[in-house]
């Protein structure tokens, strides 16, 4: 076993539920490398929702709350406020976060509570067998959009920024270094930090949406679709269609954070 895995994985919970070639393992890998670099494993409280993505924390030997579908951010809010000294990290999926958990996502961002939310985004409901999600591209065929997705898809980063998140970035499983750098920044950020971690799903999204279950092909597709924020700023909306804009998209160090404010009134009430 790799030394990072040896050191941090909850071995009783293995094997993981991830299919071979799944991008979620790359995100988990990036996260654990940062945890190792910062030496913060004992400071972490991890929360997962439901879906493939949300199993990621279950495989880490740490304090872990594997919550109900969509409720990870709401539960993390209680965890953080009960003990603000803990670093609370939420692993969620695109359906978990922006579908069933959309309300909690909006209000977590609005409160600017000090959580790090990593949304593993494969654009599909994978665990249940490949149904369309709020993030599934328009016209894409899935098990519940056999004639093509009739709905537009949601940009979770734009939602996070407009709702009040104070650190927002997007990276992908094809950019493990950029992703790790961003996770480190998010963990160091005081406030609601949100990372859209685009990740390949060979089994469901790959087969049904992209015409291949080959992880390398899917990774290359992600890589070729990605443009940096700096480059994207010089591109037209038309040229940016179907592109994945990666990098730090938003940062605000001025907005007050919720747990700080709530604890500050305790003494002078």
């Amino acid at each position: 076993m790799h030394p990072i895995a040896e050191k941090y994985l909850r071995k009783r919970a293995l094997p993981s539920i991830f299919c071979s070639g799944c991008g979620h393992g790359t995100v988990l890998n990036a996260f654990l490398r940062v945890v190792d670099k910062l030496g913060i494993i004992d400071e972490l409280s991890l929360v997962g929702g439901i879906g493939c993505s949300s199993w990621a924390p279950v495989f880490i030997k740490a304090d872990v709350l594997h919550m109900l579908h969509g409720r990870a951010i709401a539960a993390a809010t209680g965890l953080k406020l009960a003990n603000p000294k803990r670093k609370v990290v939420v692993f969620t999926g695109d359906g978990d976060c922006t579908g069933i958990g959309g309300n909690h996502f909006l209000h977590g961002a609005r409160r600017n509570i000090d959580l790090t939310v990593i949304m593993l985004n494969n654009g599909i409901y994978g665990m249940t067998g490949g149904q369309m999600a709020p993030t599934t591209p328009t016209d894409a065929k899935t098990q519940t959009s056999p004639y093509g997705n009739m709905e537009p898809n949601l940009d979770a980063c734009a939602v996070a920024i407009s709702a009040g998140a104070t650190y927002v970035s997007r990276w992908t499983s094809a950019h493990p270094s950029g992703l790790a750098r961003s996770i480190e920044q998010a963990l160091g950020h005081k406030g609601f930090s949100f990372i859209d971690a685009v990740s390949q799903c060979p089994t469901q999204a790959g087969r049904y949406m992209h015409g291949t279950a080959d992880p390398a092909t899917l990774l290359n597709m992600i890589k070729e679709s990605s443009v940096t924020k700096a480059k994207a700023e010089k591109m037209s909306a038309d040229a940016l269609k179907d592109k994945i804009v990666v990098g730090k998209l938003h940062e605000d160090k001025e907005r007050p954070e919720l747990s700080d404010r709530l604890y500050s009134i305790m003494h002078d009430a």
Partner: protein
Amino acid sequence: MKEDVVIVQGNEACVMGAIRAGCRFFAGYPITPATEIAEIMSHELPKNQGVFVQMEDEIASISAIIGATWGGMKACTATSGPGFSLMQEGIGYAAETETPCVVIDVMRGGPSTGQPTKSSQQDVMQAKYGSHGDYEIIALCPSSVQEAYELTIKAFNLAEQYRVPVILLPDEIVGHTREKLLIPASIHITERSLPSKAPDQYKPYEPLPSGLLDGMPVFGKGYKTLVDGQLHDAHGIRAGHDAEVSGKLMERLCKKITDHTDDLVDVESHFTEDADTIVIAYGSVARSAFAAVKQAREQGIKAGILKLKILWPFPDDTIRETIREAKQVIVPEMNIGKISREIERITRDDKKIVSLPKLGGNLHTPGEIVDAIRR
């Protein structure tokens, strides 16, 4: 604390009891007729090193108190009918993960939006069966402001002892009645304990012989606990695919409560020893029933009352014993007749069980209950 006498509303007494019991976290969403609990919590908790947070809905509220509990605080939420419905998935999660917490449902009337400002006792079955799957909770039911205070404290104590969500069921009348509350100088508080074993020796879901768990490995104490809503083994690892492990866990989740029914019994009986007719009542209806029984006695009728302060687990044996010699049992309830069926379940055919339902939001008058006793 010094003994004190105050005049407060039932909802306020719940807050006072909660803070006395050690509650330091409240998450809630405004809803009539429970809103005063959130309002007063928002005022009082910061003065007691506690946190109040108003969440975006009741699903978030129950989720936040589950998080806060694992974060190390005693926590509760308060709601009414529609919000109680939304909280059910979280209550099931708390039962499954053995997360101690308190949910106060100030009962209003009707399905759906129903009767926001009127009283009822229509949620007594939802309290027990509201979430999907097999599990058990504890539900307590106050009939006065004094009991609202005392049973809130008890709810927190039992939540810790049994590692279970405890539901407090004041009806709207109890919630909004203002009356005398005697605050006792000393009161028993069950503090949350860490496991007796060190992290490397400890299995978070390995039961003691009683079926209960050894302490609570809250986060940040080195236990690195996995808390999972999927049925799990003693280590907390997923085992939903394993029929034997899953079946045993569900059975334990139920039996850790029902096996302790006798320890949990909380009833009060008056004039029942020689009674031909026994009225069984709970919540504010018990007060009308008490007045009715006294009136009946004045008229020379041998009537008695059994007041239930705990509804779940249902005190089968205690009730059976109390009503053994009675000829008839009358069960007035502000619902279609729910607990009366439980009484029917535990009695033989030779006894007359009279359900006295009342819908619409008004309390039974003592006269209505006296009429039923005389009938």
